[in-house]
């Protein structure tokens, strides 16, 4: 994962508002039981200490502990169906199932919103819908790197 393509924790407000509210206290990183949130390092004083998620290393499981503990509500405590950290993009030319090699279903089985965020077309082929929360679990479990989670930090 390139250094600039990182996700904010679930429930994060749009980037500008998020940065204006984030106290950089690191409570979200400390409360995360999956160790997926890390605090941004580096020399940029405007970003250092703010939380980030790299789904290739550890994806978010949408437990929402971080947004519950955030003292300044930079992370809003929203139901997981409303979380839009990013959206996953499936590259069908790399996916085992779409290539017709094996029936894999790794991403479907692990998706916290399976059945709504990922559906199986014709019972076999994974398709990511617009209900995707962007947690990055599918990107993490895909052995073929067929899934890329694109952050929605700047849109929403």
């Amino acid at each position: 994962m390139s250094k600039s393509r990182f996700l904010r924790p679930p429930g994060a407000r749009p980037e500008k508002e998020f940065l204006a509210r984030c106290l950089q206290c690191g409570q979200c990183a400390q409360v995360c039981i999956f160790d997926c949130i890390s605090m941004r390092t580096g020399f940029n004083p405007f970003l250092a200490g703010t939380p980030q998620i790299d789904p290739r290393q550890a994806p978010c499981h949408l437990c929402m502990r971080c947004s519950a503990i955030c003292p300044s509500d930079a992370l809003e405590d929203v139901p997981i169906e409303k979380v839009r950290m990013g959206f996953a993009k499936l590259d069908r030319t790399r996916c085992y199932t779409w290539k017709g090699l094996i029936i894999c279903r790794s991403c479907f089985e692990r998706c916290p919103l399976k059945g709504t965020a990922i559906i199986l077309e014709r019972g076999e082929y994974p398709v990511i819908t617009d209900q995707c929360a962007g947690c990055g679990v599918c990107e993490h479990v895909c052995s073929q790197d067929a899934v890329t989670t694109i952050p929605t930090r700047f849109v929403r």
Partner: protein
Amino acid sequence: MKRPTLRTYRRCVQIAVALAFILIPWLNSQRISFAYGNFLSFRLAGFPLADPLAVLQITLKNNYLALDLIIGAAVALWLAAALGTVFCSWVCPFGLLSEWAQGLGKRLLPKGYQGLHAGGLWIKGTIFILGLTGFLLFSTTPVLNQLSLPAWYSRIFQFIFVQGHLSLAIVAILLLLLIEMLSRRRLWCRDLCPQSVLLVLAKQLNPRRLQVAFDPAKCICKGHDHPCARACSLDLDPGRTTQLVGTDCNNCGNCVVACKKRGRALTFQFAPGPSAGPAACDLDQVSAPAKGTEPAP
């Protein structure tokens, strides 16, 4: 056995806090979680504490009151209003490191050098106002948070234990400590730290806060040798309780300890001015607090 002095108690509290902020991120990484956060915002068993300046920044920027933060900042400001800026002298881990650096400098370096020293709120107040307006008008992140050295102290250990990253901020802190050691001045704490401005303002609002009172009638030190001034961790002269001393003093209690065997002219009390009536003293300028009038800021 000799009874421990106030200074010993203070050192114990300071070291305990400094160690706690190393221990907490480690405990969190071991899944033992009752406390989270750093000196910007902290949560102990669910109870929030917060840096008043950080809260002021994001409250003004977003026009939004977060209950946790308001409670946390109110506790910090109330503590300052009741007991003076004891956060700086009893809690702040950078204060501890800075005192050690200054003490080391005083021990190692030749005496006689007197570096430049401003004191008061001028420089830190300017940084405070510039940082706050800069954030409100131009910036997206609360920039003054990056100037909080206790926050950086705790963040270094958060970086180490949460994600195994050694932050280079450690170099900046060590460099600053080296400068303080060479100049033998508490440069950051007295002149630069913008976080202390709000605490000082809160303390100035309450004239009946805990403070060091000087009773010139009891002072037995003649001439220019003031043990209280030598003991002071901030290079103040407690015998001259002028307004500047009142603003800068952070109730560390070193002068009270030093004065204990020399007439007890300096005491802690919850009122301005000396406990006994006015009397002649060889120290000059024992003025304003004697009449019980502490001008509001």
